[in-house]
């Protein structure tokens, strides 16, 4: 009862959109495709839906090969990032459309349409045309149409990206509730790390048409397998700088300090240090282990401050709780605790994570 994607490759106009993607989806689970724009998320979903033909590879659902099967015979539903509905149908007819094609009798159809509409909270709008709905309601309608089909595989391509912040939060909460009870395989794509974490489920990190890490959301977030994943899965992206490990000491950005516990046992040599933005703190007192940079940009949102500063030819980002505006060009003294940092080898593969040894110790 699985949905499998085997060695899918897709090239368009000499450009590689997907390369050798192999994934297996279990029913009843939620999968979140995370990647930047152009990472191949949409292409992968389109190939999975059958809207785009892959150059190589096969799709298998419950043991049957789907690769050449027409879209309308497949057991899938698809939601676009644009709000796509049938403009000339009312909300009711929009939701009923997939059921009518299945030849469902009137009473059962009516019950299902109303249940789906209630699930996404548009049951009071059934007589309207899509153009008379707000953006959020239009996307709810598209989701209702996808849900009512009760397809084995539900694909959502950045469904919340065109909504404003409040609506997005609201609809995301609704989606989590809807997906939790379902038996379908849900594949959900997003560019936002926070959204991937909030949705939970299995995160599939994509970059340049390849899958680079798969695992439960929190686990992938805690153990990014490479600097690439760390950049994609942290917002703002993780600071990655060169460092060198020798014996029991680590040296980075001109600072030489004791190698923290979780990094002990790594092979001495040149490595990369991943510093999560929230692990950088303003220096409390003047010490030798401080980093002194110049602020290039300071962004303040409601509850936190992002300070971008320059040090040693590298752009750093620090995340602070609370509102602490700092003028551009001002001096910025910070301390970095290597105990909260990731260690990657020179090619970007993960060597040590801050959580792992600590949790073992505890």
């Amino acid at each position, binding site marked *: 009862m699985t949905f499998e994607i085997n060695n899918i490759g897709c090239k368009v106009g000499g450009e590689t959109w997907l390369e050798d993607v192999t994934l297996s989806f279990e029913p009843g689970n939620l999968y979140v495709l995370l990647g930047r724009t152009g990472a191949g998320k949409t292409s992968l979903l389109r190939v999975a839906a059958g*809207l785009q033909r892959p150059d190589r590879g096969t799709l298998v659902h419950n043991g049957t090969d789907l690769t050449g099967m027409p*879209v309308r015979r497949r057991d899938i539903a*698809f939601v676009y990032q644009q709000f796509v509905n049938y403009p*000339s149908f009312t909300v009711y007819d929009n939701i009923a459309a997939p059921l009518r094609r299945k030849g469902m009798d009137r009473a059962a159809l009516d019950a299902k349409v109303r249940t789906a509409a209630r699930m996404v909270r548009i049951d009071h709008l059934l007589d309207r045309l899509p153009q008379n709905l707000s953006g959020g309601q239009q996307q709810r309608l598209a989701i209702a149409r996808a849900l009512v089909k009760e397809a084995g595989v539900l694909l959502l391509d950045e469904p919340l990206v065109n909504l404003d912040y409040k609506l997005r939060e609201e609809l995301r909460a609704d989606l989590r509730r809807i997906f939790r009870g379902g038996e379908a395989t849900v594949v959900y794509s997003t560019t936002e790390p926070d959204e991937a974490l909030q949705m939970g489920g299995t995160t599939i990190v994509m970059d340049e048409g390849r899958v680079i890490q798969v695992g439960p959301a929190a686990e992938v977030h805690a153990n990014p397998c490479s600097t690439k994943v760390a950049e994609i899965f942290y917002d703002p992206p993780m600071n990655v700088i060169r460092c060198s490990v020798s014996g029991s000491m680590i040296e980075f950005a001109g600072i030489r300090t004791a190698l923290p516990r979780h990094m002990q046992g790594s092979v001495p040599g040149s490595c990369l240090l991943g510093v999560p933005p929230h692990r950088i703190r303003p220096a409390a007192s003047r010490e030798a282990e401080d980093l002194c940079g110049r602020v290039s940009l300071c962004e303040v949102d409601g509850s936190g401050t992002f300070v971008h500063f320059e040090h040693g030819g590298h752009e750093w980002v620090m995340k602070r709780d609370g509102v602490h505006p700092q003028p551009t060009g001002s001096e910025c003294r910070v301390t970095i605790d290597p105990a909260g940092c990731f260690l990657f080898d020179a090619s970007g593969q993960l060597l040590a994570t801050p959580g792992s040894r600590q949790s073992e110790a505890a």
Partner: protein
Amino acid sequence: MTMQTQTSAQPAPGIASRLKGSALSSRAIGPILLGLYLCFQMLPIYWLVRMSLMQPGDIMSSSAFLPTAPSFDNYRTIFTDPAWYMSYVNSLSYVALNVVITLSVALPAAYAFSRYKFIGDKHVFFWLFTNRMAPPAVFLLPFFQLYSAVGLFDTPLAVALAHCLFNVPLAVWILEGFMSGVPREIDETAYVDGYSFPRFFLTVFLPLVRAGIGVTAFFCFMFSWVELLLAKTLTSIEAKPIVVAMTRTVSASGLDWGLLAAAGVLTILPGAAVIYFVRNYIAKGFALGRV
């Protein structure tokens, strides 16, 4: 302080009223010019209506602005004489046939051009349009010979088919523009939802381009209705269209100005009626749907 403000405030109303005056006059120029333009435009049509209400003798002798001794005799003649009213029926039947044929051919063609990429698609699309650049006279002889050979000569179908020559390319162009305005995602969603192509096309897609279909039908109607050369050559007695009936009356029974004018008025009416129905979409149609 108050004195000062008063003195400085005083000139203001004068300026304001002068500004207002010039604004008024410039605002009046537009309607006046447009009114004049409309008069010049409508004058020949008014003259036609005036003549259609008069007797032949009066037309030649009177140049009064209002018709002298107006009567509907001319119209009565047209509606009672089969030679006249049947030519209207002929015209309408080949125009309607032409619209039906053109739309049923152009709708799938336009969909293909707007949705699919195939080798030479742009060239074929352009070639279609070049058909409109050839004068219909070029095709007169082959059409005449061909239709005579297959027994289509002097039937409404002959004219309807001949008019497809210039109407189909135009229809494909206009419809392609309208269809490209419909997001491709709607097609894909329909397939995902289980629609077959014909059902999707008829129940989902056509309602979305109905404005385009209306505009296209109007253009086909218009070009087919006013075309004289092909209509005249491909018909003789049975399927004689109104435009031909009018030209033949001139030579056959002397010059019955009043009757001719009445026929002219009746020829304008269907076009005016159709324009009324698509008035909101005409601009978009002229832009070939690419607005």
